[in-house]
């Protein structure tokens, strides 16, 4: 077993376990922390796939930004309600059955196809390539993305502003 494979399996186990913990944990605060772990694990997967830039973005935005916002939201809502928000699930059996069946079919479909060839050879610096693509071919989506984020920012401010 190569080093890559070993790293993949370890990260995969971490990812699945932390994901399960996110959806099953009774304590919402813990769930957020488990999410942070899952996102970090994903960054590791990106590293195995030699996408260092994406791994860095993942860590910065997700594990850094989103988790912070989530924690902030939990704190705010708890303060407003004045009690600790405990997590409970509903309809666990029906949901689990449907989701498991879905997962089973998808995985079966994936493995029925002939195996894809090994990873293509890496040409040049991936980060450089991404930057080049974003600034040339995908410049319009990129600009639109900027607009979207601006709109999202304004919307969030509008929603969250105190009552007049």
């Amino acid at each position, binding site marked *: 077993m*190569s080093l*890559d*494979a070993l790293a993949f399996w370890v990260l995969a186990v971490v990812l699945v376990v932390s*994901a399960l913990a*996110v*959806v099953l944990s009774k304590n*919402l605060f813990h*769930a957020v922390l488990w*999410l942070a772990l*899952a*996102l970090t694990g*994903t960054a590791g*997967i*990106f590293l195995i*796939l030699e*996408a260092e830039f*994406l791994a860095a973005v*993942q860590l910065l*935005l*997700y594990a850094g*930004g*989103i988790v912070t916002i*989530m924690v902030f939201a939990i704190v*705010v*809502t708890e303060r*407003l*309600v004045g009690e600790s*928000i405990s*997590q409970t*699930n*509903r*309809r666990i059996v029906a949901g*689990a059955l*449907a*989701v*498991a069946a*879905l*997962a089973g079919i998808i*995985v079966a479909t*994936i*493995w029925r196809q002939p*195996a894809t060839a*090994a*990873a*293509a*050879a890496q040409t040049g610096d*991936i980060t450089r*390539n*991404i930057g080049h*693509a*974003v600034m040339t071919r995908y410049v319009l*989506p*990129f600009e639109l*993305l900027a607009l979207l*984020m601006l709109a*999202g920012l304004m919307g*969030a401010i509008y*929603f*969250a502003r105190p*009552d007049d």
Partner: protein
Amino acid sequence: MGLEAYLTLAAIVFCIGMFGVITRRNTIGILLGIELMLNAVNINLVAFSRYHGDVTGMVFTVFTICITVTEAALGLAIVILLFRIRRTVMADHLDLLKG
């Protein structure tokens, strides 16, 4: 390591996220499930990009991450607003559209 391994991992994480979306009572919990699902999508995109030697998948991963962040920020703002108006974060109680 084949592509199938990454796809399988992504599928499992996706389904776990969906399980969270369906079963969580707390709206913040639902948002966490959505984050997991999007994350799984990112894994898929990067894996395909890597195995096809095409950088497009990674570019879109960048886009997805940005959109996800926006979504999370807006989603949380909505949760807080809902909370302020309805005094609850429980999705069970939000059934104004009941037929």
